[in-house]
């Protein structure tokens, strides 16, 4: 049940990011001026009939956020009670602390009239929360606990690929930086600072500059860099590890998602920031990030398996793991 619940929490976090994207895309961030109440009502008692105009998006975001917060509380308690691996339990605590901080940042940004720095921090921490819930879902999944033995190559040592480990980390960090840049562009009102696409004011490089144009152009340049990194990472996986399904799947998904993301980015500009497209661009960016994170964690699997607190050892101590091939049990595993 825990893996299913963890996956549900991760999915709900994606929904929350989409709901947050709708708030900024519709300019509804201050349509509910108070916090944590909504126009004086306790959040959960605010009448549905009054969810009109911008209130619909802002209040919906608060309701979804509260739900996700509660789910993460349950997840943290569940991990604390049932998860034998200390580092996984710590991930649960960290996710709980992050989501509480996230809620407070969301409240502060409303009470302080959306200062750029707080709003950008709120958007950036949302990605961290999503990364944490996705990581928990991943490392509690049956595939991770089994050590992906279904697609494991014969020699245990052949699972290590330093190049892949390095480039996957670089790609994931680059995606996160790109998302923070996007959040900066979004919250400083630079989303249409360059109104055309794919050119910039009719040129490859803008002919004139101001801070908003610079932020916008940096996001476009960042998209190119991220796309190249993803192509390199996924290409490496497809060329060198085409039999490892746990790597091939996220690698292929990454290629699809980044293509979709660039398309959504272009459509956001060309549609003058149509709010649904804009919000899909936000949530798809988060999906690109966590997909890259999953690929990175799986690429580094042997490091986790080789640690003293091996996931496989943990699974074994739970009595849920039966190695199919003892030769593949990593160092430190009790089986």
């Amino acid at each position, binding site marked *: 049940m825990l893996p299913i619940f963890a996956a549900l929490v991760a999915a709900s976090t994606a929904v929350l990011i989409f709901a947050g994207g709708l708030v900024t895309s519709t*300019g509804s961030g201050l349509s509910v001026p108070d916090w944590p109440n909504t126009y004086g009502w306790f959040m959960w008692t605010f009448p549905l009939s009054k969810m009109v105009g911008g*209130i619909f998006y802002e209040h919906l975001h608060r309701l979804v956020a509260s739900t996700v917060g509660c789910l993460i509380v349950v997840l943290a308690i569940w991990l604390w009670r049932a998860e034998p691996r200390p580092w996984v339990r710590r991930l649960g605590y960290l996710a709980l602390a992050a989501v509480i901080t996230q809620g407070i940042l969301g409240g502060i940004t409303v009470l302080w009239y959306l200062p750029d720095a707080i709003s950008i921090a709120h958007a950036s921490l949302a990605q961290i929360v999503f990364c944490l819930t996705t990581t928990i879902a991943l490392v509690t999944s049956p595939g991770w606990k089994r050590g992906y033995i279904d697609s494991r190559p014969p020699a245990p040592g052949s699972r290590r690929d330093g190049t892949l480990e390095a480039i996957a980390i670089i790609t994931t960090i680059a995606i996160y930086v790109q998302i923070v840049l996007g959040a900066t562009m979004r919250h400083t009102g630079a989303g249409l600072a360059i109104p055309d696409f794919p050119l910039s004011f009719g040129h490859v490089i803008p002919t004139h500059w101001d801070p908003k144009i610079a932020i916008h152009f940096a996001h476009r340049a960042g998209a190119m860099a991220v796309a190249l990194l993803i192509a390199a990472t996924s290409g490496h996986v497809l060329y060198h590890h085409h039999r490892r399904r746990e790597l091939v799947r996220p690698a292929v998904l990454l290629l699809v998602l980044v293509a979709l993301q660039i398309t959504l980015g272009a459509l956001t500009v060309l549609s003058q920031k149509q709010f649904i497209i804009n919000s899909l661009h936000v949530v798809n960016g988060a999906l690109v990030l966590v997909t890259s994170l999953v690929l990175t964690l799986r690429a580094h699997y042997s490091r986790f398996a080789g640690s003293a607190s091996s996931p496989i050892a943990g699974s074994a101590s739970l009595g849920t793991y039966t190695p199919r091939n003892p030769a593949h049990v990593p160092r430190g595993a009790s089986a």
Partner: protein
Amino acid sequence: MRRPFHLLVCTVLCATSAALAACGGGNQTQQTATPTQSATPPSPGAAAPAAPVDAATAATITGKVTFAGTPPPAQPVKLSSDPYCQKANPDLKTETEVVGSDGSVGNVFVYVKDGLGNRTFPTPSEPVVLDQKGCHYTPHVLGIQIGQPLQIVNSDDTLHNVHGLAKTNKEFNQGQPIQGMKMTHTFSTKEVMIPFKCDVHGWMNAWIGVLDHPYYAVTSTDGTFSLKGLPPGTYTIEAWHEKLGTQTQTVTVGEKETKDLAFSFKA
């Protein structure tokens, strides 16, 4: 195994308490600002005895604001996000450019920008009313003096938030969820113009000019304005429009004199 969790819970609770206290600090700031939202006495400078303008010698500046060219037609506002608004004001149109058939421009804020020197003027006690009715602000452009109460009313049977995006004055954002609610706000500093918006209904906006004197007017749909009771002197008059921009003219008026100005904006 459980100790870390307990520590985390304590840490989180402490952090939450601290953060809520900080938020309470925000509320205190708002409460501190409350006097400015109720009837704050005018600042000492504004309350100082004003040198009265001699009505017998007072001058008048009148004029008209026109638009050269073909004005863009007002666009219908999409009200579907709030059924009440859709029902209450189905024919609502944009108020950005109100141009009459003869090219006269409404909603232009015309005021004495310079020339009054160190004169001070009494602060009116009667409030200026900004009404939210039919899901739009009435009036769309208005002027007010420092310290003069601005009464903001919600005449609609729907929720509005009143968001004043002041730069030199204090920004504020207050909800008016119930029909008939009123709030009073005063401004402490001169500021032309302060945009007002309702974040619930993205199309709702208004503009308020805050001045330290009473010589301002907003053009009606016939584009005319009148600044009465001016002491004789030389003044810089500015005409401000939310989309067309600003224009200034310098004019000298003698005792009992009336001068006529013409402002012409282009697209």
